[in-house]
């Protein structure tokens, strides 16, 4: 898994790439929570995620709940088919704010 963060239009965009499984999800969780703890609004770009398991999804849920508690913006963007499948199976596609692309999220959040 590759994971990087950059600033864009008032958000921190965290891009997850490759396979986000139990081996790598702690790293994703750490980066997401680090930026939220720094009071940054976070967009997680899942467009290059080939595989994500329930531990990776748990990291996203934790970020979402942390953001909501601290009145920060948090959304998923460019969700790949592989990531969307597990979100739908978990019914979390109705919970997370999800946007097709970064520009959509930035303009609507």
């Amino acid at each position, binding site marked *: 898994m590759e994971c990087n963060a950059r600033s864009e239009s008032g958000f921190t965009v965290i891009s997850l790439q490759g396979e986000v499984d139990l081996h790598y999800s702690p790293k994703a969780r750490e980066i997401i929570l680090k930026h939220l703890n720094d009071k940054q609004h976070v967009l997680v770009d899942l467009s290059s995620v080939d595989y994500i*398991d329930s531990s990776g999804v748990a990291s996203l*849920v934790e970020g979402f*709940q942390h953001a909501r508690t601290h009145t920060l913006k948090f959304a998923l963007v460019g969700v790949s088919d592989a990531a969307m499948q597990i979100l739908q199976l*978990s019914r979390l596609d109705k919970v997370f704010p999800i946007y097709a692309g970064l520009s959509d999220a930035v303009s609507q959040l």
Partner: protein
Amino acid sequence: MADADLPLLAQKTFNSQSSELQAIRQLVRELMEQQGCTEKICNDAIMAVNEACMNIIQHAYCGEPDGKIIIEILKDNNYIVFRLTDFGPPVDKRKCKSRDLDKVRPGGLGIHLIQSLMDEMEFVEPPPANGNILELRKNISG
């Protein structure tokens, strides 16, 4: 429960480490592709077996990295059977059930995903000494 004399398509032993999950998924993918499965059926099986192995790593072995996970893949007519054996303490089967998805919280999705993705999920008679055997069945006829 799968019969003991079902054709064995593959058998491999892994350590109870998260770094093994990628190889486990690769084993399932190669086997399902050899069987001519559709992409969807292949991906369903990969996700389900990955979730089951995660549960073994996290719950049966509680993160202990030296445990063993034996994966046997068998053919039963139109079904592929994944038999996962571990040697951790016996699982309390009453706790192995899907949780309420309306309560949004991190974790606890594994059983729900496995049951959603596979046609059958069953704990069968465990090894003589200790451990658990979980069988997952997937109909590959489409």
